């Protein structure tokens, strides 16, 4: 397929000679939205940072290949990465208000972002900023540009972050929990905006979230992460309609539904996520899995196909059922 914009093979991140993220592989087409979903401590944010090569100093990144628009960026130096960041790949974070400079008007910040990537006059930059603010649905952009971040609400700030991330029309947008700090009504607006931008501008989006609802709302493809691994991946319909991995199933069952019986006992996953320093041998979910068998304690299951549409799962039991 030619419209693959981002392709990652066998990416791992290690800290103190311990891998906290392992064997991450996915590929992402133009205008598609991939959701990396998992509970806190599963390594999803680390994965996002590693894709931008923004890892903390003590972390070591290794990958067979990270291909962005056909270019192999895994061997890029910091200087080369700076060219890539912002131009071809951008990131937005959970807390928009803390990523904006509180002492600078938002207009100035956006214009600065525009001018740092393309050499244009202040007037052109202003025009561009206005149009992009309009594009992300900010009412009265000329007036907003004069305001400081503290004068804007969380939803507005997140729109501005998205605007800044999109100034150079990047091929890939990384969104790390972009709506976690926002209210449901605002969250719905922002998700709608991201979806629209992906389909209109052809930006591929990787959204990192813990919220299965957000995934269902926005994603085309899903990768469920547990203890540093992708345990299940596939398109969003197949994952939600027939999840294969016991973790995915348990996770979906533990969310209170909006239809059906109320006050029922919710499904739970016993125990807690194991610490990276004490990951169990074999399948990492074996300490909490109801179906764990002997081989689950010995061999790490590989992420293998379990159905059509690229539906893959890393579970010994799923493979057996497949025959």
């Amino acid at each position, binding site marked *: 397929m030619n419209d693959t914009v981002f392709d990652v093979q066998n990416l791992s991140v290690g800290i103190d000679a311990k891998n906290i993220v392992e064997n991450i592989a996915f590929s992402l087409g133009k205008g598609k939205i991939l959701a990396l979903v998992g509970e806190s401590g599963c390594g999803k944010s680390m994965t996002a940072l590693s894709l931008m090569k923004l890892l903390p100093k003590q972390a070591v990144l290794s990958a067979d290949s990270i291909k962005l628009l056909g270019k192999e960026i895994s061997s890029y130096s910091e200087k080369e990465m700076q060219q890539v960041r912002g131009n071809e790949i951008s990131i937005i974070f959970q807390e928009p208000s803390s990523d904006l400079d509180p002492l600078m008007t938002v207009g100035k910040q956006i214009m600065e972002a525009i001018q740092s990537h393309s050499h244009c006059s202040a007037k052109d930059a202003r025009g561009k900023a206005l149009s992009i603010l309009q594009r992300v649905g900010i009412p009265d952009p000329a007036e907003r540009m004069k305001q400081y971040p503290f004068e804007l609400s969380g939803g507005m700030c997140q729109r501005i972050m998205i605007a800044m991330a999109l100034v150079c029309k990047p091929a890939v947008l990384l969104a790390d929990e972009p709506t976690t700090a926002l*209210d449901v009504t605002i969250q719905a*607006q922002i998700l*709608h905006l991201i979806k629209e931008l992906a389909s209109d501008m052809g930006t591929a989006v990787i959204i990192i979230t813990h919220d299965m609802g957000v995934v269902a*709302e*926005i994603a085309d493809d899903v990768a469920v992460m547990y203890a540093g691994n992708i345990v299940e991946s596939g398109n969003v319909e197949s994952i*939600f309609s027939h999840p294969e991995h016991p973790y995915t199933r348990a996770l979906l069952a533990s*969310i209170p539904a909006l239809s059906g019986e109320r006050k029922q*006992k919710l499904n*739970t996953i016993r125990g807690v996520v194991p610490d990276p320093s004490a990951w169990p041998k074999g399948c990492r979910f074996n300490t909490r899995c109801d179906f764990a068998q002997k081989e689950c304690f010995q061999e790490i299951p590989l992420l293998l196909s379990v159905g059509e549409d690229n539906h893959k799962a890393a579970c010994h039991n799923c493979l057996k059922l497949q025959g």
Partner: protein
Amino acid sequence: MKEQKRKTVLSVKNLKVNFPVRGGLFGKEIGRIHAVDDISFDIYSGETFGVVGESGCGKSTLGNAVLRFLSPSDGAIYFQGENLATAGKDTLGKVRKKMQVIFQDPMSSLNPRVPVGISVGEALKVHCKLTRDEQKKRVADIFEQVGLKRDQVNRYPHEFSGGQRQRIVIARALIMNPELIICDEPVSALDVSIQSQILNLLMDLQRDRKLSYMFISHDLSVVRHICDRVAVIYLGRIVELTDTDRLFKTPLHPYTQLLISAIPSPGLKSGKKAEPQLLCGELPSPASPPPGCAFQSRCPHSKAICREIRPELTQSSSDHWAACHMIPGDKNE
């Protein structure tokens, strides 16, 4: 009605909480924020009463006023035959044995420098004349009931995970056998799989101990699951109040309708789901709410009357109350 037979645990009448807005060089009062504006409701014995709304709508202020962490400006809060709104320190201390609280953040709910057993047993020491051994036994018993081990009482908070810490906080709330627990976003800081454990625990405890909860949350799917009746709050006022099934099946107020449609839910995806209705605009500042209906600035159905007259909370059918001019049941007035 069966409602009449049920015992009322907490009764809030026309509660108002105002905060002054100060400005200028000398901090002169230039206005008032009506964080809680004329709210009334009853909580019955053994039920979970949900309070939902967006951040800044006043739901936590309401909880804090009921707990008397802050003083209401007007109105009454009846609990155990006392009016908490005007009660003095002694009455509060006496009444509060039967009312407890669970906070959102399990990290800051426990003193990091004190063994958790001491935090849990603190109320026993104040209110009951027990020997040291009896106290220890009560604490260990309660630990067992919330799904922890008896010998974990001597550990410090940092040795526990977030979910376990929330269990400890629940244990602290239960130690005096309260009738009512105010839960302020008790599961929003937890991962889904842990969240479901805590919700199950809360439901089990309610069944076994006939507890009542006032459950403050922004998460509608959690509220739907655990609550019996729900009040939807917008800018300090209740806009809709009814039992949970009715609220989610036939929401009357446009705000409730939009709120429900905005919930991202994996369950809905399987069917052909309509695009969620998007609520335009954002919560207006509580310091300068729009005239008339507070929701008119964002409401898709707003008419001239909405901009002038503030709709009162009126009963549209039995036990279904809403504050909106556009509701059919309202017209026959």
